């Protein structure tokens, strides 16, 4: 079961790369913010259909949940918007390195303290080595 989760995350990242490359082209025609809007708007429609047929959970939990648990969508928009603003100023390379370092540092902190409802998982030397390997890989790519 655990392998499937790793595979899902790997495929998710690959999908993100493909998506980025294709949306780069779309953005040239309709604009960058408009491209994000297209993604979220049509994505909502696709998911509504998926939910109608395959939804097994409880969407009504939305109304009972503490409000901070509803922030996922907004955070996604903040992420997209900062990238759109930053790329023309500092270039794709530095933007991606900065985003990824922010993402990794924050992941470690969130999990170490069990913030945002995640399970506590302490930092250990393997995790630090993983992050160091990632930073070396990033520097080599860009």
């Amino acid at each position, binding site marked *: 079961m655990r392998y499937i989760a790793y595979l899902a995350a790997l495929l998710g990242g690959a999908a993100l790369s493909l998506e980025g490359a294709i949306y780069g082209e779309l953005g040239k025609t309709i604009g960058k913010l408009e491209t994000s809007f297209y993604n979220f708007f049509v994505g909502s429609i696709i998911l509504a259909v998926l939910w109608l047929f395959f939804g097994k959970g409880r969407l009504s939990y939305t109304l009972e949940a503490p409000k901070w648990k509803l922030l*996922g969508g907004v955070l996604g928009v903040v992420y997209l918007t900062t990238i759109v603003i930053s790329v023309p100023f500092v270039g794709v390379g530095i933007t991606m390195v900065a985003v990824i370092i922010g993402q990794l540092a924050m992941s470690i902190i969130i999990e170490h303290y069990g913030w945002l409802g995640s399970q506590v998982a302490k930092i250990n030397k393997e995790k630090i080595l993983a992050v160091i390997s990632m930073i070396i890989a990033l520097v080599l790519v860009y």
Partner: protein
Amino acid sequence: MGFLMILSTLIGGLTLSAQSAINGTFSRKAGTIETTLLTFLTGTLFLSIVILFFGKGNVLAILEVPRWQLSAVFLGVLFLLFIVMAVPRIGVIATNITIIIGQLVLGIVIDHFGWFNSLVIPIDAKRAAALVFMASALYFIYKGNKRSMEQAQG
């Protein structure tokens, strides 16, 4: 100016991992498809407001672009579905590192072949070395995660 930009981009990265953590938590009670749907719906709401004030492009041009460019939305949906599935099972950091590796590996492949009108950047020694370091990162995160989960249980 450049420094401020880099700082704000760093914050962009923070929001991405916060998003995966929050969505993972929400999905335990609401379900995977439901969490993804909610993320897309609220994202649409906020972007509508952002576009009204700051939109410079033309959304209606969507009817004139080549269809394959529109197919990326399925990838966007898959991405979020996969993330919401992975976080409750392997945790925030393993999910995020694995996403980044998938992203970089495919990015290197796209560059190598110059797909989707991108610049052609062939795989060289530096990029090959980067792939090796990513593989070792994946190995370390798997090991490290297993150990901290065992500690949490025991």
